[in-house]
């Protein structure tokens, strides 16, 4: 099998991630619910995940890192904390439904800027002229469909200069691109644990710079006499029994990235993307969504001029090649890129893919078209 769907979730993980998960499932109980050994092992798993994340993203206060179920959960928490019904929110033309749907539910007026693919200057120009009337901005760092790297530092700087709170969706960049929370200065940064941070499903992170409003209410293991959720993080946003095994796996994933080198992983994935593009580029019957090298991560969308993307993906799957087809939960990105009617076939690469796998997958795709 060749797995090329890491933008959805990373399938291959380092052995230490599985080990950490298994050990925690076997030995740990519920974090923050006692001081006996299994409860403290669970609390330590949560604590180490926060500490690893704080060091990795240069975040000054690990208590303000909330462990979530996934990036969607983290984004919902951030949006719920800052959304104001009827006020204006700015987003890019490449946002995932995990941003779009909670914003629609919040009743905010959504204004989209930067709808042209691989055009960061155009996005910034539109953003500059739209910021005055905005009370919130939510921007993805990288498009999950096209691997397009948005100019997030410049976006953050503009938002900061106009006093507009910013939520960054780092779902496709955390673990791959440099993400320094100090220099970014965003109010919230949301990310999954199970994609490029190499943790397991059921894990995500929210780096909280601003005030928070709970979405879920219940036991936190602290201030039990108070009928409100605690005023402080992380307890304020972590009601109920937390997923300590997923936290242990996430910490192990971050340690692996640190030991292998984030830059090395970024370079490897980008090379695989360019390699795949070079093998498919000369095919007249394929349209490639390839941007300048500096603007694209290891994610490549293509579409056939003759075959349906889902049909192609099904053929590839039958031959053991796992790719994603359709709209990738990002209809807005497809509307922006003009691919809403067809969707795309997306190949996304991981630290564990090899150039030989890319060649085999490309040969199969060429055979089918």
């Amino acid at each position, binding site marked *: 099998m060749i797995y090329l769907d890491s933008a959805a979730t990373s399938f291959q993980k380092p052995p230490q991630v599985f080990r950490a998960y298994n050990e925690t499932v076997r030995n740990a109980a519920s974090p923050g619910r006692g001081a006996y050994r299994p409860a403290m092992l669970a609390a330590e798993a949560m604590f180490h995940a926060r500490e690893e994340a704080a060091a990795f993203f240069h975040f000054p206060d690990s208590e303000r890192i909330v462990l979530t179920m996934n990036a969607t959960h983290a984004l919902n928490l951030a949006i719920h904390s800052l959304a104001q019904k009827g006020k204006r929110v700015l987003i890019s033309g490449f946002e995932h439904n995990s941003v779009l749907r909670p914003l629609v539910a919040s009743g905010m007026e959504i204004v989209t800027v930067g709808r042209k693919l691989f055009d960061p200057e155009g996005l910034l120009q539109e953003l500059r002229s739209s910021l005055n009337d905005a009370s919130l901005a939510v921007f993805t760092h990288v498009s999950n469909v096209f691997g397009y790297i948005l100019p997030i530092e410049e976006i953050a700087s503009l938002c900061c200069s106009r006093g507009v709170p910013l939520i960054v969706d780092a779902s496709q960049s955390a673990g791959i691109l440099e993400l320094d929370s100090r220099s970014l200065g965003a109010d919230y940064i949301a990310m999954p644990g199970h994609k490029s941070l190499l943790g397991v499903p059921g894990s995500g992170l929210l780096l909280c710079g601003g005030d928070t409003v709970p979405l879920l209410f219940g036991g936190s*293991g*602290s201030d039990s006499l108070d009928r409100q959720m605690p005023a402080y993080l992380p307890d304020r946003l972590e009601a109920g029994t937390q997923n300590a095994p997923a936290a242990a796996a996430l910490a192990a994933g971050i340690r692996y990235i640190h030991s292998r080198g984030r830059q090395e992983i970024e370079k490897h994935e980008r090379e695989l993307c360019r390699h795949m593009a070079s093998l498919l580029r000369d095919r007249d019957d394929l349209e490639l969504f390839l941007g300048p090298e500096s603007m694209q991560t290891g994610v490549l969308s293509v579409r056939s001029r003759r075959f349906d993307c889902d049909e192609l993906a099904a053929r590839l799957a039958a031959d053991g090649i796992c790719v994603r087809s359709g709209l990738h939960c990002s209809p807005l990105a497809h509307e922006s890129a003009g691919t809403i009617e067809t969707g795309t076939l997306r190949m996304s690469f991981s630290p564990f893919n090899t150039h030989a796998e890319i060649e085999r997958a490309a040969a199969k795709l060429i055979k089918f078209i």
Partner: protein
Amino acid sequence: MKQYLILCRSVTSAQRCAKLLEGALIRASVVKAPRGLSSSGCAYALQLHNKFDEAIGILKRHDMPVGKCFIREYSGEYREVKT
């Protein structure tokens, strides 16, 4: 042996404090605070046997949210220590 308790607002806060003290070679364990010491319900605490003043100084210097502090008397009862 003397036993001090420093109340913390959460298990995470207690863990951060313990890590900070560990860096200064002060050993502190994270324990559940006795119910009678916490006015807000369930709480965690740092338990240490020596270097109490030094520990408090370090935690305050790092702006850690430190709650009430207690020393355990020979009778087994806790007496609040002003810091």
